[in-house]
Structures are given as structure tokens and as C-alpha cells.
């Protein structure tokens, strides 16, 4: 399990997902939902392609321009929920959003690499960044 006190490791994880996002690039998948995630407060914007089959997230891709926090949180989160059910994703989102707002790490196992955002709760304006893509997925589930 990831060592949450290893800041060098956390920083590396975040930078990798920012500079080389694994889910970057839309694939024009048939039957995919296209969702725009656009910040109301800054210029961050993403187009997200989501394929849901039998209530499972089968594929999620994205492209756009966003800051390090928004990009890496989207990429890590998409990795995390791939092949998970809408119901399980809902639980992760609930925990993640609580973690962003309060820094509460009681469900650390559920969040995996998302713990790189452990200090976001101290900078309220960045919560919006860390939540940009996640909120878009939340809207689809609801």
C-alpha cells in the first residue's frame, strides 16, 4: 500500500499522471457518453468519453486543458473506477469528496493513489480542481 508520508513518492505519482496521463485521448467509441467538465471558476476544461456497460465503467478517456491537480486527479480517478460498478464508484466518490473537504483518511484503502491530494483540504480553491472530472462522473451516476 502507498505510504502516505512519502511525499517524494506522492509527488512523483501526481506528476506522472499530469505529464503522461494514462487515459488521455478520446477514442470515438460507439455508444460512449461524452461529458464536458468545465470549471466555473477557472479556464480548466475537459471532454470525457465514458463507456458504461451493464452498469460497469468499461472505458473512460479524456482530453482538454487543465492544471496539474485537475488533470492528475482525473487520470488517477479514472484508473480507479475502471471495471467498477456505478454503485461502487458512488461510494468512492463519496469518500473522495469527504477526503478533499476534510483530509479524512479513514477510508484510505478505497482511495488508493488519490491520497496524493492529502493536503488539498488546506487550500479550498484547489478542491474545485481536484473535483472537476469527479463531479462530471457523479452527474452521470445520478
Amino acid at each position, binding site marked *: 500500500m502507498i505510504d502516505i508520508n512519502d*511525499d517524494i513518492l506522492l*509527488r512523483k505519482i501526481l506528476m506522472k499522471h499530469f505529464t503522461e496521463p494514462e487515459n488521455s485521448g478520446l477514442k470515438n467509441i460507439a455508444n460512449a457518453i461524452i461529458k464536458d467538465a468545465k470549471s466555473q471558476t*477557472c*479556464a480548466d476544461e475537459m471532454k470525457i468519453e465514458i463507456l458504461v456497460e451493464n452498469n460497469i465503467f468499461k472505458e473512460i478517456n479524456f482530453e482538454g486543458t487543465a492544471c*496539474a*491537480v485537475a488533470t492528475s486527479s482525473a487520470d488517477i480517478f479514472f484508473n480507479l473506477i475502471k471495471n467498477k460498478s456505478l454503485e461502487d464508484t458512488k461510494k468512492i466518490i463519496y469518500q473522495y469528496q469527504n477526503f478533499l473537504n476534510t483530509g479524512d483518511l479513514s477510508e484510505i484503502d478505497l482511495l488508493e493513489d488519490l491520497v496524493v491530494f492529502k*493536503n488539498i483540504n488546506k*487550500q479550498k480553491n*484547489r478542491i474545485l480542481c481536484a473535483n472537476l472530472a469527479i463531479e462530471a462522473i457523479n452527474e452521470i451516476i445520478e
Partner: protein
Amino acid sequence: MKNFKKYFPFYDKQSNLIYFDSSATSLKLKKVIEAEMKFLNENGSNPHAVDYKKGFEAFEIIKNARQLTQEFINAKKANEIIFTSGTTHSINLLANGLKKIIKKDDEILVTELEHSANLLPWIALANSIGAKIKKIKLNEDFTIDQEALKLQLSDKTKIVSFASVYNTVGAKNDVKLITKVIKEFNNNIIVHVDAAQSIGHTKNDVTDSNIDFMSWSFHKMYGPFGVGCLYGKYELLNQLEPLFYGGGMSLKIEENLIDYSLSSLPEKLEGGTPNISAIAGVIESIKFINSIGLDQIEEHELTLKDYFKIKVKENNLNDHITFYNLDTKSPIILFNVKGVNPQDITNFLDEKYNILVRGGANCARRIEGVIGTKIAIRASFGINNNKAEIDQFIEALKNTNSFLDVLF
């Protein structure tokens, strides 16, 4: 370099903060805040209620502010000054007010560097009547290309609207010369200048430049929020249809509830109770700028920009930072750290260096067509800034590769 910080209570309890966002709004003067508070504490009455002394005092405050504003921009008459809630309101009042004058297929000329307040009202007007918006060509230094403009003008051109200084790249247009080009082609073309970005930094003389309309907000001249101005030449201003109808602007409403007559200017375009406490602050903001002198203010700010330019070169910041407008004559710096999103840098500057700047699109949504990117970081200086703050800024910019430090 004079120290102007003492005029701004902002620094009283947070002298470590470096405020570089005067383009979004300037800091507020102690005297402005005190004037607003004084009115609210000691008066608070409606300026339309002139029957009693306090109401008349409020009425006099508006009269005084209007006269000072007239003198500040060198308008010919005080009733050419319309108080609004800000630049956005002013331009909407103008665009809406011209609805009956603009016809289908007429052309409205704007630049791609206008902020939303000087684009959306024109787009909405054009769309509502089938008129067309045309882009004015720009020079390499982002100013309006006067030769190209001559060729763009036609019998269909009805309005030309542009900023005297752009809120992103900070290029300063020669308003007088541009207006001359337009008026020589056809004196009836309406010239509107968006002075939001320049009003607190450089002289805007409406008589000398011969423009027809000008808009701005007082919160960008160390003054109060919630009050702005639409200046217009009397005859043209008088042709505008009001945007708001209400109290204080009507002379008579007939029994048939169809016919009415409106007051004369300026009341005709100022329906409703004005933001009178803010207008009390306006008086102090103009007096302050007059006491320092716009030429002094401009010199102070451009000295800071020149100093910044020298420091950029000395520290080879160009290696990892793209600067878009170091040579424009206004105290705005627009830049991007290569490979890093603006918001990560603005967050870094705030958290690690207490430097307050803006990142993103800065309300000029079409800037992409001019500088090749739609997002950038903007640092804008005011008289409240000094060289020591620029030094700190340079130090921060040297260390932008540590931008992720704010998260760990």
C-alpha cells in the same frame, strides 16, 4: 519611488501580501471606504427625497460626483455623465439603447482582445437585429491597425467599439488617432471606448479624442464597487432608449397608462435609486487621483514594468517563461511558465510568496486568436506596488519548477 501603501488599509494587517491584480480591481483607498461609511452612518437617505435636508444632501453628493467626473474626463457637460453599476452595465445600456438606430446588415467593429463586457452586449445586439460583428485587424504590438481599419470601414459601419487599454496584453490604443480615422471616413459612425482598464492609469480626455461614448467602473480607480459611468455626447446620449425604467426618471404617466414622458438627461437613463454610498466614495477616488496626478501614476507604474523587464533579462527568465507583452505601455505582465498550467503557478505564487495574480482567460475570451493561447497568468501593477515587490516576484518566478511544493 514614492510609497503609496499608507493610503490603502489593505496593508494594515497583512503588509506581507503583494497585490498584483489591479486590472481585476484596484485596492480601495482609506478615504473612499470612510466616505462610504460616513454616508451610511450619518445619512443613508434616498437622493430622490430632496424634501428634507438629508435627502438633499444625498442629492448634492451625486451632483458633486457628477461634476468631478465630468472634469476628470474633460466632458463638456455634467449631464453627459450617466452613473451605472459598472462597465458592464454601461455597455449594456449603450448597446441596448442603440437598438432603434442599428438596422439589419449594419456592421459593428470590435477587436478580439475585448473583455466580455465589450463583446457580449454587441453580439447580443447584432444577433437580435441581424447586424454583423466584424473584427478589427491588429498590429504586431496588439494595437489597432489604423491602415487596415480605413479599409474595413464601409457605409454599413455604424459602431466601432474598442478598449483604450486591453485588460490582458495591456496594449494602449491611440484613441484620438483611431477616432480621427473613423470620423474622417464618416462622422456619423459611433465610436465607443471601453476605458475600464485605463481609467485609473492614464488620461482619458473625451473632448480631445472626440469619441462619442466611454464606459468604465470606479472600482478600477481605487474607488468603490458597484458604480461606473457611461459618458456620451449629449445629442447621442439623449437618443438612447433607457435600459431600466423606474423611479426618478419619469416626469409624467398619463391616465391611459400608455403615454409617459421621461426626465431629461442624466436622470432619464438612471432609473431607480442609485448606489449612493458608493457615489460618495467616487468623490474621494477622483480627488485622490487628481491629487497625485495621472501622469505621476502612469510614470510610477511604467517604472515598475521597466524594472521588471530588466530583471527578467538579468535572470534569464525567458528560458522557462513565455512573456507575451513586456513592451506594451501599461502595467500589465502576461505570461506562461512553459509546460505548466496557469492555475498551478497562481496557486504557487499565492501559497509560497503571498503574490496575488490571476490565471486563466481573464474575461477576454477571444485572446487565443491573438497570442496563440487562451490561458495565461496576468500580473498587474498599481501605485500601491514597489520595486521590492517586483524583486520578490522575480525570485518566485525563478523557482517555478517547485510549483508542486504547495501540495506537499
